[in-house]
C-alpha cells in the first residue's frame, strides 16, 4: 500500500502504528478479561503506558511520572465515563490521550481539534451538500464527525484543546455524554453508542477563563490534572530522551548536552517553577512565564543549534545562559529582577561547579 511504502518519509506515525509490535505482544500475552469494546485488558493498557516487559518484548514507557494518574485514567474509561486531561502546556496531555486511545481502541485518529472556529457540525455531523441537494438527506450524504464514528464503532474519540472552542460548541457534548446518542432528525433516526465508546478530551490550564467549561459539562467528565514531572530524576530522564530524539531528527550539528548541563537546566527550571529550592530550604520568586519541561527541552535544543551553527559544536555555558535568559526573562523588567535575585541568592552559593554558568548568566542578565 502507498501508506506502508511511505512509512520512512512520514513525519510522524500515529501511536498504534509506531508501537504496533508492542501492542501485538501485549495482545498475545493478555490473559485478563477485556471489557466490552476494548482491545486489551486494563492491566495491559497500564503496562503499555508505563512500560515493562511482555513475552520477551520490551514495552517502552510512554508516560514517565505518576503511575497512579494513569490508573485513574484507565479506571475512568472502564466506567464508561469521559476523560478530561488538564495540565500546563507541555505536560504530555495529547501524548497520553493518543496512547491511551491506541491501546484501548487501536485507532487514535478520530480527533476533533478544538479551535475558535470549531463548530457544532464538527462535533456531531454535517452534510455533503452536493449529494444533499441532488438526493435529499441520505446516509451517503451524511458526513460523520469523529465522535459519531466512534459511537458507531464503540471506540474512543479524542477532543483536543476543548477549552479553545466556543462554549455552545462544548455544550453539544453534554447530551452526547449523558444520552450516549446523537439524533439525526433529517434521516428520522438516532445513532446510539456501542459499548466501549468514550471521549478523551484535553485542555490547557493556561486557557482557563478563555472559554470556561460549563459546570454541566465538567460534571460529565472525570477530570485528571497532569502535573509537571514530580522528581528531578524523572524530569532529567524525560529531557534527555526528548533532546536525543529531537536532535537526531533535526540533525543538529552539536554534541548532546552532558548529564551535568541537563541537570543544571532542569534544576533551575524546577526551582523557578515550584518557587522553592530543591532542598526545600529557600523560597525563590517564580517568573511570570511558563517554564515547563517542554520549554527546557526546546531551550537545550535551541542552545545546541546555536552551538552547532555559530559555535564549536560544543555546548558551552554561554550558549545555555543565552537560552536561559530567553526562556526565563519574558516580561523583562520584573523577570529580570527575579532572575537576578535567583542568580545571586541561589546559584552564586552553589560553589565551583556552577561558577561558570553563574558568571555567564550574570553577564547576560546585566
Amino acid at each position, binding site marked *: 500500500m502507498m501508506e506502508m511504502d511511505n512509512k520512512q518519509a512520514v513525519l510522524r506515525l500515529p501511536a498504534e502504528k509506531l508501537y504496533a509490535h508492542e501492542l501485538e505482544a501485549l495482545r498475545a500475552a493478555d490473559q485478563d478479561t477485556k471489557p466490552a469494546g476494548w482491545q486489551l485488558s486494563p492491566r495491559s493498557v497500564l503496562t503499555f503506558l508505563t512500560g515493562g516487559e511482555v513475552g520477551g518484548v520490551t514495552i517502552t514507557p510512554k508516560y514517565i511520572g505518576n503511575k497512579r494518574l494513569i490508573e*485513574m485514567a484507565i479506571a475512568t474509561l472502564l466506567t464508561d465515563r469521559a476523560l478530561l486531561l488538564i495540565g500546563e502546556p507541555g505536560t504530555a496531555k495529547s501524548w497520553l490521550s493518543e496512547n491511551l486511545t491506541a491501546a484501548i481502541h487501536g485507532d487514535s485518529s478520530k480527533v476533533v481539534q478544538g479551535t475558535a472556529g470549531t463548530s457544532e457540525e464538527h462535533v456531531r455531523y454535517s452534510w455533503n451538500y452536493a449529494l444533499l441537494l441532488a438526493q435529499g438527506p441520505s446516509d451517503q450524504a451524511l458526513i460523520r464527525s469523529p465522535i459519531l464514528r466512534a459511537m458507531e464503532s464503540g471506540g474512543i474519540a479524542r477532543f483536543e484543546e476543548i477549552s479553545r472552542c466556543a462554549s455552545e460548541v462544548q455544550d453539544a457534548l453534554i447530551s452526547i455524554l449523558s444520552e450516549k446518542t446523537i439524533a439525526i432528525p433529517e434521516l428520522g433516526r438516532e445513532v446510539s453508542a456501542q459499548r466501549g465508546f468514550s471521549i478523551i478530551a484535553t485542555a490547557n490550564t493556561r486557557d482557563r477563563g478563555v472559554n470556561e467549561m460549563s459546570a454541566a459539562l465538567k460534571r460529565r467528565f472525570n*477530570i485528571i490534572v497532569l502535573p509537571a514531572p514530580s522528581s528531578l530524576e524523572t524530569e532529567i530522564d524525560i529531557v534527555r530522551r526528548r533532546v536525543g530524539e529531537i536532535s537526531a531528527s533535526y540533525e543538529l550539528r552539536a554534541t548532546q548536552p552532558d548529564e551535568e548541563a541537563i541537570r543544571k537546566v532542569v534544576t533551575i527550571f524546577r526551582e523557578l517553577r515550584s518557587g522553592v529550592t530543591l532542598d526545600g530550604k529557600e523560597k525563590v520568586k517564580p517568573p511570570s512565564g511558563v517554564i515547563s519541561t517542554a520549554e527546557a527541552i526546546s531551550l537545550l535544543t535551541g542552545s545546541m543549534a546555536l552551538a552547532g551553527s555559530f559555535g564549536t559544536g560544543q555546548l558551552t555555558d554561554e550558549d545555555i545562559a543565552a537560552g536561559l535568559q530567553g526562556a526565563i526573562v519574558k516580561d523583562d523588567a520584573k523577570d529580570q529582577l527575579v532572575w537576578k535575585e535567583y542568580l545571586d541568592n541561589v546559584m552564586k552559593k552553589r560553589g565551583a561547579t556552577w561558577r561558570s554558568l553563574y558568571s555567564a548568566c550574570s553577564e547576560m542578565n546585566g
Partner: protein
Amino acid sequence: MSGSARGPHYWGIRHLSPAGAYHLLSLLKEVKPTAVLIEGPSDAGHLASQLVARGVVPPVAMLAYTEQLPVRTLLYPFADYSPEYQALLWAQRNGCHAEFIDLPTDVSLALQDLRRMPIAAEEAVAEADEPAEGMSFGLVQRDLYARIAELSGEPDYEAYWERCYEHLASPEAYQQAIVHFSSEFRDMTEEAELKSAPQEVAYNEIREAYMRRKIHDTIASGHQADRIVVISGAHHTPALTLQLPLMTDEQIKKLPRVPTRMTLMPYSYYKLSSHSGYGAGNMAPAYYELLWQSMQHGELEKLPALYLSAVAQQLRERGTWRSTASVIEGVRLAEALASMHGGSRPTWRDLRDAATVLFGHGELSVVAEALARIDIGTAIGSLPEGVSQTPVQDDLNRQLKRLKLEKYKSLVSAELELDLRENRRVKSEEAAYLDLNRSVFLHRLQTLGIRFARKGHVRQTDATWAEHWVLHWSPEAEIETVESTLKGETIELAAAYVIHEELLACTDIASAAKLIRKSCDCGLPQVMGQATHALQQLAVDAANFEQIAMTVHELSILLQYGSIRRIDTESLVPLMQQLFLRGTLLLVEAAGCNDAAAAGMVSAIHAMSTVAQEHYREVDEQLWTAKLKELAARDDRNAKLSGYAFSILLERHEAGEDECAQEVSRRLSPGIPADIGAGWFEGLSMRNRYGLLSRPYLWRELDAYISSLDDEPFKRSLVFLRRAFGSFEPREKAAIAELLGDLWGAGAETVGEALQQPLNEEEKVQLDELNDFDFGDL
C-alpha cells in the same frame, strides 16, 4: 494464628487496625478465654481498669513519664478500634482476667536512654572496618515498605496494607496473612537490624523474654493454656512461643529502672494522625473509625458511598456544590480502581483519588480540607472526673519550685523584677541565670495563654536585660494549664507547639519576625529556627521596602542582643543578608512615592542605614551605598528622599565638598520647580544637622539659590523651607543666622549679639503681623 492444641492462642495485630479488632472479637467469642494478655506496660494495671470505666470516650492515651528531669515520656494511644482496647472491653464485660504483659514503664523509660546512647567504643571500632551502607535501619525499613508497595502495584504501603489485610473477611485468613507477613519481614530484616540498630534488637529481645515470662506466669497461676489469648504486635508474635527461654527472676532484678508515673489523658484524632507513638502510623483515624463501624454493622459494602457522601456533604457545607450524581460516579471510579488491583473493595486511597477526580475536578487542593475533616476529623477523647494529674500540671509545679516562684502561686497578685544578666556573685550556673530562666518560663506561660503572668512595662525601654512581671494565680489559669496538655506534655513542648501553629498561620514578614523574637524570648532555639525558615519563605514575596527595612532592623536587634538570652542567633545572619539585599534592590523603585509616603520611607531608609553600619561585615554595604548614590543622583524620585539619601552620603564622607557644592547648585538651580528644590533641601536637613552647619559652602549655595528666585517661586519655596527649618532647635537656628550673617558680611559675632538683643516695640509689631501671615495663600 490460633494456638496449637495445648498452647495459648496468639493473636498478632497491627496497632490501630479495625480488622484486627473485629476479628479478635470473634476469636474471643469462640475461645471464651479466662485470661487476656495484652502487649502494654505491665505496671499500668490500675489504668487498664480506668480505661474501660463508664464515661471514657476514646481516643485516649496512657502516658508514662519520668519523675525526674529530664522528663522522658512514653505514650500509648488507643482508638475505639484498637484491638487492645476492644480486648480490655470484652474482658471486663465477660469477667475475664486482663493484663498488660510488656515491660513496666520504669524499665522501658530507663532503657530508652540506653537505646539512644551511641554504641560502646570497642564496637564502634569493629564497625569502622566495615562501614555501614550509610543507611539507618529506619530507612532500610521504609525502603522495604516502598518496594513492597511497588511490587504489589499499589500506590503506597498504606494502600497495600489495607487491600491485603484490612479487607480480609475471615479471621483465619486475616491472622494467617498478618503473621506470615510479619515473620517473613522479620526474617528478612533481622540481619540488617542487627547490624545497624543492635540496641533495638536487644531491646526487643528483652521485651519478648519478659512477655514470655508473663505468659508462663499466667499459666502457672492456674489458667488453662488453651483458654489464654495473647494479643501483641504481629512483629512479636512468632517470638512469644514458650519454647524460647523465659526471663529469669535474676534477670528481672538486673533491669535498670527509673521512677515513673502514669496518667490517662484525652487524646485527639489529630494527634493520632500526626505523631502517634507507634511506628505503625495511622494516617486517617476517622476513616478507620468509619471502617470499624461499617464492619460492626456488617455493612462494609456501604463504606465507599458513606465516605464519599460525607466528603460531598462537607464540601457543600463550605459552599462548594457537588451533586449526588458525582458521588455515584465517585463510587464507580473507586470500585474500578479497586478491581484493577484485583481487590474486592476500594481502599482509602482509591476513595481519596475518586474524590479528587470527581469533586475536585482533578485538583486535590479543592477537596483537601474536606478530606482532612473526614479522614482525620476533630474528635477529642474525654475522661470522667477523678483521673490523675496531667503532665503539664506536674511540669508547671515542678518549674515553679525550680525557679523559686512557688510563693507567687496565690490569688493575690505580686510584682517581680527580673535582671536577665548573669549573676556573678553566686556559684552554680542554675542560680546565676535564675532570672533569665524565670523570664523564659513566664514567656512560655504567656505564649500558652495561661494567665498567670502579665508582662509590665519597663521604664528604661532600651534595657534589654530588665523585665517587669505581674504574677497572679486563678482557677482559670489551672484550667488553661490542663488544656495545654493537648499541645504537649511539658510547658516547653506545649509552648513550642503553640508558636509552631502560629507560624503556620503567619502570612507577613513582620509577624514572622515577631515570632522569631517570641521563640527567642521563650528559649526555644529549634522553633526559632522554624520561624526563621518561615520568615525566609515569606520574605520571597515581600516587596514592600518599608516592611523589609523594619524586619531587617528587628533581626539586627536580635543579632545584637540575642546573647543576653544565651541563644545562638547566627542562623539569622543569612536571612538578614538576603532581606537586606532585597531592600537594597527595591530602594530606588520604592523611593518614587509622594510626600505622604516619604515620611515612612525616611525611617525605613534610616533603619537600613543603621543596619548597614552595624553589620558592615555581614551585609553588602557597598551595594547599599551604591543604591543610595543612585537615589541621590536621580531626579525622578521623591526629591525629599533623594535629599535624605545625599545627607547619608555626606555623613559617611562618600561625597566631598566639591560634589556637595555641585549637587546643591544642581538641585537648587533656578529652572527647578521651587517645591522640588526646597523638598530636596528638606530631606537633606533631616539628618545630622551639625554636619550641615559645619559646611559653609552649603549655605552659600542655598543663599545664592534663594536670591535667584523670582517672587512666585520664592513664595512656593518658602513653604518648604519653613517646614524644613521648622524642626530645627532655636540654637541651631541661631547658628544658621550667624552663618548667613558671616556670608552677608555682617560677621558672625555681630549677628549673634543682635539675636541676643531683646525685641523693641516696632519689631514686636512686625513679628505679630507675620504671625497672621497665612501660608495657605501660597
